């Protein structure tokens, strides 16, 4: 039996506020820049994910918006206001942290009410809004519990309610799902997205998990070494990666060597069309998605190296006669065994090519 979630109360619905980072630089003084003149424009009510490997600067960017990290140059704007000199507690943000951040000496209700107390909201209004926020995350009945009496998923729900109850201008989420187990992570991820859409709040979400970012965000900014490599919809990133890094980081890719000539790339003797780009003719690396390679009755002969079951599908690594390995994604009903001789064929075009020296 499923429960019906309440729609967000009026007290939780906000008008989205734009957020801008303009040429923001942050240098920790260790020689490498945490943020290297990045610019980001988040539309009102938009859900943007900052995605990248550890140390790429995504958390620093989020903390620059929150004010928890000062910046060396550039501008941070929320709405029409430049806020780089505004202290954290006056920025009117809501933030959910990676580690559990509920105040241990307070109950769930007291935690949720804290932001409202700081804003001097009256007792009656405060109690009502706390209850509405807790109902929104499905924990209205646990108001008197302490953090140590709750699971990790419940604690992060309370943290979300606590961040939303003040109706902040922007919601900042710093890897809020990292500490949770896989099942709870997916549930809470979907719930965060649903609540964000219903409340209309502008949200910036930091994650290193590409699946998470692609599943929930309106747009994803892929970061690397303090820069934004590409920002676009999940489909853009997956189907039209703008760089070798994005093609390799977002989704699984086969990196195969080929030769580009007249808009076609030749890989292991097979001619594949490529999207028009700035890469000159010559040796290239082509990025081919596993689902664009098929196990076929005829095609390039290959030996199965390994295979793994993914549920509805199976991913199999094969080694071609040419010497390089390819990952093939195919129906789970086909189950080749390591050592089998199979044939593979390219069914789609490479998502990206990069010049190879």
């Amino acid at each position, binding site marked *: 039996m499923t429960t*019906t979630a309440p729609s967000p109360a009026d007290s939780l619905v906000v008008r989205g506020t734009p957020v801008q980072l303009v040429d923001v630089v942050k240098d920790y003084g260790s020689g490498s820049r945490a943020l290297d003149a990045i610019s980001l424009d988040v539309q009102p009510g938009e859900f943007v994910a900052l995605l990248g490997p550890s140390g790429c600067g995504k958390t620093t960017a989020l903390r620059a918006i929150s004010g928890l990290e000062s910046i060396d140059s550039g501008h941070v704007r929320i709405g029409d206001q430049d806020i780089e000199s505004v202290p954290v507690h006056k920025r009117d943000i809501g933030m959910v942290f990676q580690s559990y951040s509920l105040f241990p000496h307070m109950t769930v209700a007291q935690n949720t009410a804290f932001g409202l107390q700081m804003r001097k909201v009256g007792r009656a209004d405060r109690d009502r809004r706390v209850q509405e926020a807790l109902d929104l995350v499905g924990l209205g009945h646990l108001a008197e519990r302490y953090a140590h009496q709750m699971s990790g998923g419940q604690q992060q729900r309370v943290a979300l309610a606590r961040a939303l109850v003040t109706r902040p201008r922007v919601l900042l989420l710093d890897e809020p799902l990292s500490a949770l187990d896989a099942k709870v992570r997916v549930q809470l991820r979907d*719930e965060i997205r649903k609540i964000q859409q219903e409340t209309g709040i502008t949200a910036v979400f930091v994650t290193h998990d590409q699946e998470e970012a692609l599943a929930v965000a309106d747009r994803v900014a892929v970061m690397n070494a303090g820069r934004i490599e590409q920002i676009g919809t999940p489909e853009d990133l997956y189907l039209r990666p703008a760089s070798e890094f994005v093609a390799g980081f977002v989704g699984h890719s086969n990196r195969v060597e080929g030769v580009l000539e007249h808009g076609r790339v030749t890989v292991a003797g097979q001619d594949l069309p490529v999207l028009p780009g700035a890469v000159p003719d010559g040796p290239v690396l082509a990025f081919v998605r596993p689902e664009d390679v098929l196990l076929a009755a005829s095609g390039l002969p290959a030996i199965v190296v390994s295979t793994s079951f993914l549920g509805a599908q199976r991913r199999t690594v094969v080694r071609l006669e040419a010497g390089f390995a390819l990952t093939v994604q195919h129906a789970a009903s086909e189950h080749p065994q390591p050592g089998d001789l199979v044939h593979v064929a390219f069914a789609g075009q490479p998502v990206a090519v990069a010049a190879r020296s």
Partner: protein
Amino acid sequence: MTAATAAPIAGVDPTGTTPPSRRPARGRYGAVPSRATGTVVLVVVGVLFAIPLLSMATFTLRPVSGSGLTLVHWAALFDPAQQSNYSDLFAGIQNSLILAVIVVAIVLLLLVPAMLLAELKYPRVHRVLEFVCLLPITVPTIVLVVGFVPVYQVLQGVVGSDPWTLSFAIGVIVLPYAYRPIQANIGTLNLTTLTEAARSLGASWPVAVWRIVLPNLRRGLISSCLLTVSVVLGEFTIANVLSQNTFQTALLLLQQTDPYVGALLALAALLFVFVLLVDVSRTRSIGGRRPKKRKS
């Protein structure tokens, strides 16, 4: 609209996950001792402590001559006719209590802010602070006092030679005992994230420290203050060498003429500390306050 979009967690009870048990399964390596083992250990330790205390209590109830038990030694302490015998003792107790208050104030107003700054703002000085705070325990008190003597000769010219001036010297020797409980408490918390969460919710730095940090350090602070008071009440060497009248120096002098009162007051001091310890053990570091009943 499907049920899945309507439910916050479709088909899943958000309360379904039970928090982990505090007591691991018995019989496993590294598990906490059983309740029976704990009881046995407590009883053995309790008896070891109780024997000398009961012996002292019995001694204070013995008459000077003859047999039986009497409260005459306890009554003498409160007998107005004998107050002149104990005037130095009462002055010493008063001095020690004043010293305890000042040293606790030094701990709370200087050490605690320094530790919080090191934890939250300047993590690089953390090791230096720890070294400085633990250093006094490695130096014998008598050695410290020899160093303090010339300092106090100068100090007397500036602030006089009242007993409260001992608080500067005792403030140094209590540092290790005051530092450890607070640091142990800090180690159990992620103070950085807690303060950042508070600030993101609209709390300024002072409010975040007052409303979030200090309540969560309550246990460490109380333990620290208790140990500080214990050290002050038990400190003899500094007061004796610097010729100050405190509880310990007065007790030693009195002991030479009236051993019953010495044992009696030692017992009272121990009971005082014991009561404080019990109070600390009842203070929970988290969730200690009962929540107010919320209106539904």
